[in-house]
């Protein structure tokens, strides 16, 4: 009986929230529809009405839910909780969902706008009132993104080369130093570790100036080296991995020693597999860092052979040769091609990314 009521309550909640979201969508589209080319006045007006009705239904559904919930989850004290309080509780919940839905829409809208703009024709994009859904889909924009304006294929290749090489090298450096700090005993270990952490407090801009002089002196300007080497050491990643290594019990190390395993073998066979979640986090954040890096590449490697994707994207000119109109849809298609890989990586590795980020607050 109680379970029945519970599943009924869950159903109510689902229906209520779906209605709420649908209502907000209908309302927003309807309201915007008045000024938009794609929707007529009548359609917009009816959408607004439907939106209001759906929202009312959602609130009603959630209000009822609170009553059921109280019946199910409170034992005997139901009568003491006043009706008014219950209604208030449900109202608060409805407001929460409404608030979250509206903000979530604002969060998603730029992505939506980027996607639909990327498949519009230039004529449609330039219409006096923008359309919320393209009249005709033009997939050729994605071809234009590769051929006209910027050499996107080359940019992707450069970025992947820099990303992969710098991630692998950086992992080697990070794992070796984290292992030394976590497992080995040597003089000055604590001082060295403290000094290393202290460098984290100084803003990166301070390093950039001298690093520019250094890489010029090494004749590294406009090479892949200049994009990879200066950022191989990340003190934060060493710190993160060391903490993880420290959690692995020492008994394993002693057992491996008795079996005659060398340090490197132990590191490779035991430590790295056990610390793999942290290593995956570091790998993803480092890759994303190369994909998004802009300031340093813009300063030291802006020739076409070594240009990274973000630098190329901002500088690209999509003006059509014939009509002299700027091909915004093609530009948006290029933006989609840069953004979508990141989103895919995020969807697959969500857990690792959020873990890494919540501990650091650094972006790649």
């Amino acid at each position, binding site marked *: 009986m109680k379970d029945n009521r519970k599943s009924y309550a869950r159903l109510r909640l689902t229906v209520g929230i779906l209605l709420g979201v649908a209502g907000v969508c209908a309302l927003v589209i309807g309201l915007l529809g008045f000024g938009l080319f794609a929707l007529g006045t009548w359609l917009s007006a009816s959408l607004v009405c439907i939106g209001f009705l759906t929202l009312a239904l959602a609130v009603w559904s959630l209000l009822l839910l609170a009553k059921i919930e109280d019946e199910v989850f409170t034992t005997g004290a139901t009568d003491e909780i006043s009706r008014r309080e219950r209604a208030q509780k449900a109202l608060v919940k409805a407001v929460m969902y409404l*608030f979250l839905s509206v903000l979530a829409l604002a969060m998603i809208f730029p992505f939506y706008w980027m996607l639909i703009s990327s498949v519009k024709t230039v004529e449609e994009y330039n219409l006096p009132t923008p359309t919320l859904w393209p009249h005709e889909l033009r997939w050729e924009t994605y071809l234009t993104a590769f051929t006209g304006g910027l050499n996107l294929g080359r940019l992707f290749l450069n970025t992947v080369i820099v990303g992969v090489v710098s991630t692998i090298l950086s992992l080697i450096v990070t794992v070796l130093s984290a292992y030394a700090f976590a497992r080995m005993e040597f003089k000055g270990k604590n001082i060295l570790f403290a000094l290393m952490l202290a460098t984290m407090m100084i803003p990166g801009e301070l390093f950039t100036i001298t690093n520019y002089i250094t890489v010029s002196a090494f004749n590294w300007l406009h090479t892949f080296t200049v994009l990879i*080497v200066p950022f191989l050491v990340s003190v934060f990643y060493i710190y993160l991995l060391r903490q993880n290594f420290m959690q692995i019990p020492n008994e394993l190390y002693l057992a491996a020693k008795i079996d005659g395993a060398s340090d490197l073998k132990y590191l490779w066979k035991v430590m790295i597999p056990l610390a793999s979640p942290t290593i995956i986090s570091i790998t993803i954040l480092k890759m994303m860092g190369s994909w998004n890096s802009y300031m340093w590449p813009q300063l030291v490697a802006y020739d076409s052979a070594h240009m990274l994707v973000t630098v190329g994207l901002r500088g690209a000119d999509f003006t059509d040769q014939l009509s002299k109109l700027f091909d915004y849809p093609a530009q*948006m298609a290029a933006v989609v091609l*840069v953004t979508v890989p990141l989103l895919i990586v995020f969807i697959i590795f969500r857990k690792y990314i959020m873990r890494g980020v919540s501990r650091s607050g650094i972006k790649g």
Partner: protein
Amino acid sequence: MKAKSKKRNQWKAWLYLLPMIILLLVFTVWPIINTVRIAFLCRWDPDVGAIVGYDYQTSMLENVHYQFGINNFINVFAAGNSFLTALGNTMLLTVLTVPISTMLALLIAVALNSIKFLKKFFQTVFFLPYVTNAIAIGMVFATMFGMIWPSPAKPPTSVGIINTIIEAFGGHYVNWIDRGSSYWANIAVLVTYIVWNALPFKILVLLGGLQNVDKQYYDAAKVDGASRWRIFWRITVPLLSPMIAYVVITGFIGGFKEYTSIVGIFGEDMGPYGAPGKLNTMVGFIYDSIPHNQGKASAAALILFAIIFIVTMINMYVSKKKVHY
């Protein structure tokens, strides 16, 4: 025997650390020393007729001697007042975006914490802006706020999606970022974009903090019959204060280093068409100076560092007084 193996281990440990130490010495430790050094190096250039800061290229070619002095710092403030513009823009953006994004993030985190259904979905949606490319999405914001305006003599042919929404609500369109746009319209767009971009991290941290709050406090407050508003201000905010302090401090540090979001929306010119440099920031000023005058860039970087240091100290001091625990 034991001592011998220990010694061998020492040697080995340094070998493991060697790559890290070399890289850190060259690209982190030396820059700290050298940047302070060249910030105080300058010389009188008879060709230019002015005091110029350290420049690697000319110092290589002409083998010139530099003298110690504070002229780089004077130069920074004198240089056509563009540093003061950058300083003002940076301060304004920081002061506007940090409180707005912190408050919004707090509200969203509290709302997210109070729901169960669709929580994961909303969490994912609110995290999306974090995993995007600041330049790429800045370009999307530019197309949302920008107008299609082929000839300056005539009115724009299309006012863009945001203006269309405004007009749908009965308002008049605004020239947000195009040629001749006003300073405050530019700032409004930048604040919107920076807040949009800064929310995910703040929500993540605050929600993490909320989930660790002991439920007992809320139960006790409910027994006492406290209102929701009162619970929010008297229990949630004080218990979250360490997290709030953390996002405010990192927000200020990030705000003073603002640069890529402006490039994303306005491009390398750092301003609307016809007004380059109007929205330049301190980091932008430093990067502009790096290729031809590293002395000036170093002086500006030290000023930036000093500002960040002082603001962080003030933040720490205030939060020590206000943060409970």
